[in-house]
């Protein structure tokens, strides 16, 4: 029982971490941009949060710093790709390399010893629900933002004019423009949101999960977020499910060894990626992909 709770708990934590970034990427992709720099946004957020928390001596300082760092990366990505019209892949790739380099360099040269961690908040009553209660309602406080974020994103994308224009921009930017939508603005806005959310995810990682800052700590989570959006068929619900799957696999990779189950560690680490590769052909239908995804306006 207890071990199940551990597994579920870590799985959910990782799933939600991923979900923050994945929701951001979902918004970006619904607007038609394939945003490779999510990894950079997360990493920048993670580092900035750690540095700020360390400097201020409090984990709460990490959150705004993480968000700001993510937004800064988003700023570059959005404006170079969708105002100056540079190839978004190139920009994204360059940003990833740059951010990896800069953060690694800073980590190597400065000493960020312990980073103050965020405390758990346990919601009484709900947290006592067997198996899932602990996982869903006994988490570090940055976790709980997901309960607001998830419905907000769903509502925003499908029930508001902003969401309609965003989706129009991702499906057929030319037609959208002729219908009066400012496609560039919607796309840039979507990327900014992605930056905010991914930066937050990075901050969550540092102060909520790891409690320290290390080189390349995001370990490709940004890319998994992209994969989650794909696997989820570009819908909110699908993204949640995909992140849950990944979270479960990653959680297992962490928890199983401590439970005495020996699985090849490389297999465990590779598992999330293999899962995507195996499941995508079955689940994600190409037709639900935003028609203009990856194509510049």
């Amino acid at each position, binding site marked *: 029982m207890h071990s199940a709770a551990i597994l579920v708990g870590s799985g959910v934590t990782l799933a939600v971490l991923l979900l923050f970034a994945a929701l951001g990427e979902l918004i970006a992709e619904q607007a038609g941009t394939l945003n490779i720099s999510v990894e950079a946004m997360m990493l920048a957020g993670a580092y900035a949060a750690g540095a700020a928390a360390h400097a201020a001596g409090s984990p709460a300082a990490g959150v705004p710093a993480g968000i700001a760092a993510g937004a800064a990366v988003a700023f570059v990505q959005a404006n170079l790709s969708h105002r100056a019209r540079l190839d978004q892949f190139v920009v994204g790739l360059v940003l990833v390399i740059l951010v990896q380099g800069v953060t690694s360099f800073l980590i190597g040269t400065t000493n960020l010893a312990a980073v103050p961690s965020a405390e758990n908040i346990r919601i009484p009553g709900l947290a006592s629900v067997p198996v899932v209660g602990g996982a869903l309602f006994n988490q570090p406080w940055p976790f709980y933002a997901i309960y607001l974020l998830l419905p907000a994103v769903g509502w925003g994308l499908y*029930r*508001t*004019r902003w969401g*309609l*224009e965003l*989706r*129009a921009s991702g*499906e*057929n930017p*030319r*037609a*959208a*423009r*002729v*219908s*009066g*939508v400012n496609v560039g603005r919607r796309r840039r806005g979507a990327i900014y949101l992605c930056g905010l959310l991914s930066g937050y995810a990075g901050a969550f990682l540092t102060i909520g999960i790891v409690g320290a800052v290390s080189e390349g700590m995001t370990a490709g989570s940004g890319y998994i977020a992209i994969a989650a959006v794909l696997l989820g068929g570009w819908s909110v619900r699908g993204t949640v499910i995909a992140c849950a799957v990944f979270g479960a696999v990653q959680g297992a990779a962490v928890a199983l060894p401590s439970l005495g189950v020996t699985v090849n560690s490389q297999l465990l680490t590779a598992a999330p990626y293999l899962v995507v590769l195996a499941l995508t052909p079955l689940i994600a239908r190409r037709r639900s992909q*935003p*028609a203009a995804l990856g194509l510049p306006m």
Partner: protein
Amino acid sequence: MRLWHHPAGSVPDGARAGPELSARGLSKRFGSVTACSEVSLDVAAGEIVGLLGQNGAGKTTLMNIIAGVERPDQGSVTLGGVTLPPGHLGAARALGIAMVHQEFSLIDALTVWENVALVRDGRLSRRWTADRIRHLSEAFGLDMSVHLDTPAGQLSAAMRQRVEIVKCLVQEPRLILLDEPTAILSRQEASRLFAILRRLVRDRLASVVVSNHRLAEVLGSTDRIVVLRAGAVVADLRTADATERELAVQMLGSDPPSAATEKADTAVIVGAAGVPAPAPDATGESRAESAPGAGPGPPAGPALEIRALRARGARHSAALDGLSLEVGRGEIVGLVGVEGNGQAELMDILGNRARPSSGSLKVAGRPFRATRGQRLRGIGIVPADRHRHGCVLDMTVAENLALGGLRQVSYGYLVSRARMRRRAAALIDEYGISCPDPGVPLRYLSGGHQQRVILARELSRNPAVLVADQPTRGLDVAAVEDVWGRIRDAAGRGTGVLLNSSDLDEVLRLATRVVVIVRGQVAGEVQPGAVNAEALGLLMGGAGAQWAA
């Protein structure tokens, strides 16, 4: 009952002084090409103005400028006395200008109501949008009997246009611009559209500018006609004062080829310069007489033989349900049918884009191998969607002319640029393709010349059968003539032609035999001389025909 309200204090009525729309000195260049040259235009309140001109004359650009989609290099546009900020879509819309575009501006993945809602501002509400759609469609007799949650991509072309029109009307515009709206409509649908426009204008709800390159339609549906040629206004007159001949002269800038009277329902059959157009009966006989041994290879029966072809349809289209058809050498077989009865699927199969589920296909006696990879030898394909399926716009003219037949210009595995260039030069000459240099990307040629390139490429390989799918759609008079001539020439040389066209006049004019397709099967065959467009339309709509929504 007032259907909508105009900005306060500016209700148009007959007694209003001054024009509703006033465009002065509009000029626009794209690179070295002049799209509009000092165009000035007035539209009075409650008027329907027809913009007449060939493709490339500047109609679309002019309308885009007025609608605020494009920014003019010079000139100004005034609506109801208010000058529009140039190139500002939002401002134009706020002032009451709405446009129905030639290439539809609907978004496939969004539903009907979402598409309509996109043009408004304010809170998004399905209910409000649905109400509005219902209201407008009732008021104007637009057949919107489609579920509002249907993704726009699943609609037929005619329904899509209706959604476009509703989208336009929802904006309660004072000025409505329509860019070549009848290009894909049948005759009946075009009439319905004009009736709606009349209604709009009669109730003084809006003024209308319609661009068209079909003379007869323009004469029958407008109050005033403005003729554009090479970006400039060459004539501006009341419709009542205009004659077809004069308009044709203005449009073409010279004595038109005698068939310039368009695909009108005239009883006069004329021929293009230099190519006598035989009367239909004579065509049938002469074709039979000059029975070609002139086809490629030894004459071995029909050029194209289709037997019991079956295919699954996509979306709403009918499948092919045991279609059998033959095209003899030197014949021009016209395929007609209401949109959605299987023509698209047949064209996809012949165009190598889809595979039949059963049945047999033979070209010049050789069976069609149902592998997507190999281009079937002996078939020339002129697809309906020429930019998507027929050419590579970003490759040069010379390269496009060589595509599909690279072997002819290669030494073994390597392509010889020199040979390609020479071949291109020869074809450019023979087909009168106007391009400064074969090394220019195909993109920069006009539509008519792009089609010539495609035809040149296909015909130069001397195919046993030529499949021509909507070959003159969107082309101007001169280009249409040219295409018809080439098709006739090819038939004269022994190529069998399968012509799929939604333009009944074109079919009647060219074909030696007309085949009617209904619900994926051949429903009947007629002689072009024995029937006219109306009767054919009735046949197509016969019992069991599937009318597209």
